[in-house]
């Protein structure tokens, strides 16, 4: 089974033999890929029990729990890389979560859907209702995405948390990636999402 393109882009950022913490690891597809292709020593955190079971059956080490309450238990600099893919918008306290990720991993990879995408902007402007896109297709009242942000918003939060952006990739709707300048206005309108490689200063 081939890896989802956005996960493959994350995998490409990870060095051989790295110790990796994947927060919100789902069924463990990325961790398994990293274990096999990069001999990574991977750990995961996942909220949904059936997905944890799937990880355990794959031979992965995964803790059932959530980013908001469990990251505090992890020692500092315990991992080479901490990953949070397409999940930060669903955390209760994104600033704190990002702070923990930067503390736990020597480097942190974050991917997120971009709420500044033109389709979102137009949908609100002309539709007058909370935007729904292929990436964000829940109704406003039952969405798990309680802290949506734009690429520019996230870049500002990363700076406020004392993080340096080492690499930034724009993510299009097919999951393809291309390099972008994190502070440019273009990707904040055109990119469906983004992937950042961060390091604490």
């Amino acid at each position, binding site marked *: 089974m081939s890896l989802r393109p956005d996960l493959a882009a994350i995998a490409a950022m990870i060095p051989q033999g790295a*110790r990796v913490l994947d927060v919100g690891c789902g069924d463990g597809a990325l961790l398994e890929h990293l274990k096999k292709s990069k001999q990574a020593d991977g*750990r995961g955190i996942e909220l949904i*029990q*059936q997905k*944890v*079971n*799937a*990880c*355990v*059956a*794959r*031979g*992965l*080490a*995964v*803790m*059932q*729990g959530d980013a908001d309450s469990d990251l505090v*238990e*992890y*020692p500092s600099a*315990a991992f080479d890389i901490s990953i949070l893919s397409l999940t930060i918008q669903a955390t209760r306290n994104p600033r704190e979560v990002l702070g923990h990720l930067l503390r736990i991993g020597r480097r942190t990879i974050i991917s997120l859907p971009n709420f500044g995408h033109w389709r979102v902007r137009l949908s609100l402007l002309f539709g007058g209702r909370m935007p729904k896109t292929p990436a964000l297709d829940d109704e406003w009242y039952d969405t798990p995405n309680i802290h949506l942000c734009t690429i520019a918003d996230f870049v500002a939060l990363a700076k406020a948390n004392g993080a340096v952006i080492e690499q930034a990739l724009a993510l299009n709707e097919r999951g393809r990636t291309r390099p972008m300048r994190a502070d440019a206005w273009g990707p904040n309108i055109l990119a469906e999402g983004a992937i950042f490689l961060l390091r604490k200063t």
Partner: protein
Amino acid sequence: MAELPKFIRPVTAAGAEIGHAIVLDKPLELDCGQTLAQPTIAYMTYGTLNAARSNAVLVCHALTGDQFVASEHPVTGKPGWWDEMVGPGKPIDTDRFFVICSNVVGGCMGTTGPAEMNPETGKPYGLTFPVVTIRDMVRAQAMLLDALGIDKVLCVIGGSMGGMQVLQWAASFPERVISAVPIACAARHSAQNIAFHEVGRQAIMADPDWKNGTYQLHGTQPGKGLAVARMAAHITYLSEAALQRKFGRNLQNREQISFGFGADFQIESYLRHQGMTFVDRFDANSYLYITRAMDYFDLAAEQGGTLAEAFKGSKTRFLIISFTSDWLFPTSENKHVAHALNATAATVSFVEIATDRGHDAFLLDEPEMYDTVRGFLASVASSVGA
């Protein structure tokens, strides 16, 4: 198929040979400072040990459990206490794994304990039996594995007090344990749990038939005290929601309350039944000793208060399982162990299973628990080629 040693004597019940027992040729040194010169360990095995001796799974039983994990109990005639977990094609698949389960030291199903004869006096030990610990139980199991010629086990697994033994195994003999599955347990017994045990012990000791622990010499049995102990403990194994669902305020075989102290309510009748049947299969002094062993369990204390130290450098793969409605060994206690393991960079998975059945859930049909254990064991076995 590996050759196993000949056993010194079979355990018998009603004249029939039930399981095995081995008299250890070495003394068992206990934490209290005393030794048991040649203790007997009664145990059951299921499945076949492979030629490489690499497919052994050690199951540790809980407070009132025994070695009859997957076969009919010789006293009650009931199926094994983990019949749905262990057996051919079951999550712990005896077509693939060689399963060992031994009665703990201090127990009353054939292993040396307070009800057994003290060879030095020719009388039952009673309260002269030394106080044993979870670590002593694990030492005895390690000696049993030595005697069986098994160096490493693929997995040590158990729930409740069995889970405590699993954690102790991983701490005491990390190089002998490839994987460990502690279920519904904790790294130390909480004040609340010690309190419930004390109520049970006091109930036994308040029974005039207990006779300071010498009831065997008097031909009596503190059945009333032991039954009360079991009733109190049994409540802690369930949950408020499960009690309400199963019993509510339903009356037992009557239309209205009796204005008396008979078992008006179904829950009363149920608890009385649990107490009465327990007395037939369990020794009161054994109950005192084993509850004490659980009370004394504190894995961090052995390490100067830091639990993570107990697992430092461990190569063992851990799977920790808790249940949402377990208030005896709540998720927080299980997660505490998982976080300590994480802090030492050990390989640990943690699963919390949603159920309203309380602590007892680990003994019951919980498909998610079975799936998790099945997947974990299969992945561990294939990673070491067992």
